[in-house]
């Protein structure tokens, strides 16, 4: 049980290595918050298929859609609040950001039509992380939801997405490149001549590699953002402040295998170092220890013979071997969870047992929710 204590937070962020079930945990958190009376939105990044399937939605879009409360009721969950979900559309979010901050409609159109902008906003790794944080800012600003659950994108480093806004803002601000391209700072073309020797050399090298045309285009692109940097920075700052405050909580999600567990420890410490409030650890898909000791093969064989097995002893041996493997994995999971508790200084931990099937419907999700909220 960990999430019960986090119901009042404005933003819950689920993060962890790829493949540990972050999206499922995010959806289960959203369901629990909605059941606890909160008007909740779950923001998922990639792919929304998992979440959409779990919530019985054919597809998700950039705009929040409400989960049918009847669906939850049918699965035995009474939503006294509301549960909404959306899938991040990085390009749409970026376009809105530009529209919001462009000084004039002409400036807006110029940016939206720029070739470099097209690549930057849709195709490039990194813009998704930036836009996840930007979308979070929009949702906080619109103030339509009491709780926001953010499912983090699969990043090389799970902290990447927190640094993304700053990195991207810095690129767009282009202080470095503008210094090279437009040392005069004015908006009249490229001040090639005014460059001091070092920059001129760097520039000529860049130009040799890329051709002058590309540099000119980048320069135009960066120039068109003139006057918008402050807006970008303010938003990046506001989000960082929110995420570091006690209105937010990070949940580190991991699997019970040694590799993701090691990554979870690194992530936990990195979050703490970064000053982010870590609310707890979720160990997803743990195998539970089977009852009893090793199966007695002779007895089991007799029982299977009575049940009509063709080769009862062989079947008994295969069954016993399967049980032993289960036990070995369950013991490993116990060891890993204990190791995590010790490494992280006994934090709040929720263990979500391995279900027979992936939770692809509300009923399955509700079981995960129960583990998270201890209901």
């Amino acid at each position, binding site marked *: 049980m960990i999430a019960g204590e986090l119901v009042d937070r404005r933003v819950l962020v689920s993060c962890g290595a790829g493949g540990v079930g972050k999206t499922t945990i995010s959806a289960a958190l959203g369901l629990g918050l909605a059941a606890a009376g909160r008007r909740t939105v779950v923001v998922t990044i990639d792919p929304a298929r998992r979440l959409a399937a779990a919530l019985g939605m054919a597809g998700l879009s950039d705009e929040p859609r409400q989960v049918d409360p009847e669906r939850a009721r049918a699965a035995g969950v009474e939503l006294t609040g509301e549960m909404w979900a959306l899938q991040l559309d990085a390009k749409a979010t970026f376009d809105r950001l530009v529209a919001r901050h462009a000084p004039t409609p002409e400036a807006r159109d110029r940016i939206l039509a720029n070739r470099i902008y097209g690549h930057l906003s849709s195709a490039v790794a990194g813009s998704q992380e930036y836009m996840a944080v930007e979308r979070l800012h929009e949702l906080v600003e619109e103030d339509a939801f009491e709780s926001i659950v953010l499912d983090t994108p*699969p990043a090389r480093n799970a902290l990447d997405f927190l640094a993304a806004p700053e990195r991207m803002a810095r690129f767009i601000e282009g202080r470095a490149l503008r210094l090279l391209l437009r040392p005069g700072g004015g908006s009249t073309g490229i001040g090639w001549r005014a460059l001091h020797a070092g920059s001129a050399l760097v520039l000529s090298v860049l130009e040799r590699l890329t*051709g002058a045309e590309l540099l000119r285009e980048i320069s135009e692109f960066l120039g068109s953002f003139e006057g918008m940097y402050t807006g970008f920075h303010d938003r990046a700052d506001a989000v960082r402040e929110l995420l570091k405050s006690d209105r937010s909580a990070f949940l580190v999600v991991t699997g019970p295998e040694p590799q993701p567990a090691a990554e979870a420890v690194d992530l936990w410490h990195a979050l703490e170092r970064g000053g982010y409030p870590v609310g707890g650890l979720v160990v997803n898909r743990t195998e539970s220890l089977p009852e009893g000791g090793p199966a007695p093969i002779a007895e089991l064989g007799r029982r299977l013979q009575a049940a009509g097995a063709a080769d009862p002893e062989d079947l008994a041996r295969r069954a016993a071997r399967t049980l032993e493997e289960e036990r070995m994995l369950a013991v490993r999971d116990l060891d890993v969870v204990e190791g995590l508790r010790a490494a992280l200084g006994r934090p709040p931990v929720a263990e979500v047992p391995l279900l027979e099937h992936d939770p692809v419907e509300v009923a399955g999700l509700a079981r995960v929710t129960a583990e998270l909220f201890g209901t």
Partner: protein
Amino acid sequence: MSRAAAGPAPPLIERRLWFVLGKGGSGKSTVSATLGLTAALAGRRTLLMEVAGQNRVSAIFAGASVGHERPVELRPGLFGLSVMAEQAMEEYLTGQLRMRPLVEVLSRSRAFHHFVAAAPGLAEIVTLGKIWSLATELEPDGSKPVWDALVVDAPATGHALALLDAAGRIAQIATGGPIHEQAERIEAVIQHPAATGIVVVARPEELAVSEALDAAAELAERELPAALAVLNAMHTPRFSAGDDAALEAALGAGPLPPAERAALEAAHARRVRELDEQGLLERLRDGVGLPVLELPCLIARQIDLPALEGVAEDLARERPPALFGAT
């Protein structure tokens, strides 16, 4: 129409540059290691590469320190290398400018460093460029390529597509200059089904298989040469339809001691799982449009290198057509 569909594409083993793609948790890194071991056992001089500082290869070959300076021999014929964007950038500039002083000026320029760190997509293109240069490198006498097979443990699917797309995008953005030309040459290799083979990895789980089907469709749409789908961590059949009746009868026969009940339930659950997995295998075979290779589930406390080597030995001996082509 994808180029792969234009003619019979060779099996993966006959291509040189392998990219292994999969969602987090699909076992992409262990599959990369297994494929690398298999290629080496099949007589290919093989380079196994990790990118973006993932250090998974080093973790699998416990004790081996896979560096980014030069390939480290992990097993006979199998080498490991970690490709770092920063280092690749410097190497690229050195090769490109052929003037050490110029590179030093750039390396010292703070403005340039900021640009490199922040420019979206730059890390991908220099990483891809480094992989390409390794893949096209020849022995000093020019007689043959240095590497017969290069296995890239790619980042998670979304980022991997960005990596594979990087050259094409740069070729589009930079309309002139050496970067444009080079990006086109890289793109030509990456897109050529005789040179490059992309491997899509999934676990036998409902959503994972759906995502693998999506990934294969996406690759086809981008005209990227997919070569193989791997269904990883399949439970080898241990129970069959003939066991069902006895297992159910024994479970329903009345009170049982806990250990016996647990064993029967474990057997029953495993049988259900095996059936599910067979169904998923068929779904993948029907929809993915690629040869499908099954790799077994290794039940162990942690990644078990001797077991992976055992799997690779089996593959090298049995030469499954999905990997080696029809004989």
